């Protein structure tokens, strides 16, 4: 009992342990930040190319031989563009060379010309300079993604093709623009035409259904269980089951959806309705658990004061307890929805892992979701889909950030402090 005041070696040890621990903590944060920076950095550097596109101006002959002015819709637009390319590059005489010059433009060229003629009927009868979307390989050259110093057989574009591209560039017939169609098109087999809109709409519709079902149901379930349910074995059993459900792998919910919603109720396959239902089954337990925790965190004095002033239990809950718990409930909901947004496994079973071009505008039309789109593009053979994949990831992350910001704003609005 002598050394209570004078500093002992033990105290020194405790102090250095504290410093050490703080450094461990900083180290852990640094490592996770490093991973984040590397991941986001690599996605950004890979994906940024997908937001630009290359256009080529080609002079096409829309004379009476090519288009019948009385009946322009019957013209063979693809052939007109191919003829224009042949005129532009008269040296390409062999079949193989011709295929190469056709390959400079996107496969969509015929449809592009058709749209041009529809928009500019006055051009029929003469020649017109039309901007066409360049093919993915052309785009790669224009972007500088093709290493010209490599020997010819080790790159995707031959010397001839590169010479043609250079020739077009010198004529000022090549321009790089922002790739708006990435945000306005649905999926496509051609990387230069593929867009994210159908997947984005699909994700939004699916999440809408998921939110509309899981949010009210989860809140009602949580409030009843927390505030009104008698504490007995039956309610214990329900609680254990909810906790277990939150840990069930998502593919199980997909199988349930397949057998229940598709096979029993005959709902349309691949639709956001079914996707949203399946995902809401998955997110329900997460939201219920979060909601119960935040209801429990409301100080009992609030409840007791309300009851003491003569409020009925329902009034006490809905006027006083629930509003105070709302910020916590919203956080739980956002976590659940974010999980649902990134889910592909359950969607596989109900047919949402699909090639869908048309943009869905109701919850009954076939749709796909953002993570599915990423998966499909990552699996596509065309090289240019690599950057599309990263670009889709960027869009997914932005979607997630937007959701989180909305949650934070709502939480700010509802938050009350004591």
């Amino acid at each position, binding site marked *: 009992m002598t050394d209570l005041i004078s500093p002992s070696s033990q105290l020194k040890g405790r102090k250095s342990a504290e410093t050490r621990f703080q450094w461990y903590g900083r180290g852990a944060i640094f490592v996770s930040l490093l991973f984040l920076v590397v991941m986001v950095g690599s996605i950004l550097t890979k994906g940024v190319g997908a937001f630009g596109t290359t256009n080529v101006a080609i002079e096409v002959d829309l004379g009476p031989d090519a288009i019948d002015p009385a009946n322009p819709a019957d013209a063979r637009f693809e052939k007109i563009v191919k003829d224009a390319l042949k005129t532009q590059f008269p040296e390409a005489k062999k079949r193989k060379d011709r295929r190469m010059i056709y390959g400079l433009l996107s*496969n969509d060229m015929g449809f592009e010309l058709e749209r041009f003629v529809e928009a500019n009927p006055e051009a029929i009868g003469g020649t017109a300079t039309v901007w066409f979307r360049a093919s993915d390989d052309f785009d790669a050259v224009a972007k500088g993604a093709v290493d010209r110093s490599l020997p010819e057989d080790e790159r995707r574009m031959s010397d001839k093709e590169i010479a043609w591209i250079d020739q077009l560039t010198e004529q000022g017939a090549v321009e790089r623009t922002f790739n708006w169609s990435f945000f306005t098109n649905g999926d496509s087999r051609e990387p230069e035409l593929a867009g994210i809109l159908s997947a984005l709409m699909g994700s939004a519709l699916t999440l809408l259904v998921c939110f509309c079902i899981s949010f009210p149901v989860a809140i009602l379930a949580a409030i009843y269980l927390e505030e009104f349910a008698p504490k007995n074995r039956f309610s214990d059993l329900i609680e254990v089951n909810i906790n277990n459900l939150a840990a069930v792998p998502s593919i199980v919910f997909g199988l349930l959806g397949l057998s229940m919603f598709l096979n029993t109720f005959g709902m349309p396959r691949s639709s956001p309705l079914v996707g949203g239902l399946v995902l809401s089954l998955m997110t329900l337990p997460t939201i219920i658990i979060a909601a119960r925790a935040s209801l429990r965190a409301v100080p009992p004095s609030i409840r007791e004061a309300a009851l003491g002033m003569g409020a009925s239990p329902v009034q006490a809950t809905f006027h006083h307890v629930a509003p105070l718990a709302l910020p916590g409930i919203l956080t739980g909901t956002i976590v659940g929805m974010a999980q649902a947004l990134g889910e592909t496994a359950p969607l596989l079973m109900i047919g949402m892992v699909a090639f869908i*071009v048309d943009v869905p505008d109701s919850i009954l039309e076939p749709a796909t979701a953002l993570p599915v789109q990423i998966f499909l593009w990552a*699996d596509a053979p065309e090289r240019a889909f690599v950057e599309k994949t990263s670009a889709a990831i960027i869009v997914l992350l932005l979607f997630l950030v937007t959701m989180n910001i909305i949650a934070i704003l709502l939480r700010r609005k509802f938050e009350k402090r004591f």
Partner: protein
Amino acid sequence: MMFTKTLCVTALALATAAAPSFARDQITIVGSSTVFPFSTTVAERFGKSTDFKTPVVESTGSGGGLKLFCSGVGTGHPDITNASRRIKESEVALCASNGVTDIVEAKIGYDGIVLANSKKSAQMDISLGDLFMALAKDVPAGEGETKPNPYTMWNEINPDLPAVKIEVLGPPPTSGTRDAFIELAMEGGCKTVDWIKAMKKTDKNAYKTLCHTIREDGKYVEAGENDNLIVQKLNANPNAFGIFGYSFLEQNSDSVQGSMINGVEADFDLIAEGEYPVSRSLYFYVKKAHIGVVPGIEEFLSEFTSEDAWGEEGYLADKGLIPLTDEEREEGAKSIMGLMNLSM
């Protein structure tokens, strides 16, 4: 709360407005992931050039697709299924037991399976027999005897092969590419041993086990269904070989090269001519009962069988599909457009 209510009421209104019938007005296609790129290309073209909606194409694998396809008649079930192999007797029976009796078969082209490595290393020329020796779980050791695969280096099998470790990245057992590789390459190499070939008649099970089992000691690495991933890994490891479809070789011809098999290069023309030994046919199957119920099926078939699509210079050839011969195409188009029933 108001916000939630409005959102949900709108959604429900949208749902109920169209709810009375879940009828479908676009074609649904399921099936093989190998045929998926071709099927989607035609679907996209079809959607753009006609007034019909773009068909929905799901990639479920050949087996999974046929299972869905055979599960019944009615708009809740798919109209077309793609397959990277021919439909099996058992699947025809399953179809029939669910009322799917009239099926139209369409053979659309060929696909080569390649063994490729990075361009940083030399190209390999290997016979099917040697390939079997390198990848089988058990290899023949004298007449009627087998032993666990002892080979760790390519040149232990055949001194002409390179002196590098055997390391092959390939698809997992769920993949149709793996099925086809086993059937064409492994069994093809296995059969080159006389006593094994004779065994096919006497003891079919033992023959199958020997010829169809890939080694599991880490020399064959299951690299997942994503062929792009295999290509990336080959770039990182010049000593490794990968097994994948020809279209991925074509797209990555700047970084990987196909090995010669039995002295034949994995080349578009050689696969089309049937010279290249590891190639298979691709199919799709159409449910006849849905023609006239789901709009556009016949028009879709005529788009698929047009020369612009599956012809020698069609847009599917650009995507890596190896076209049928002229006669095959002519006859195929006749039987498909004539909606002839499948005969096994």
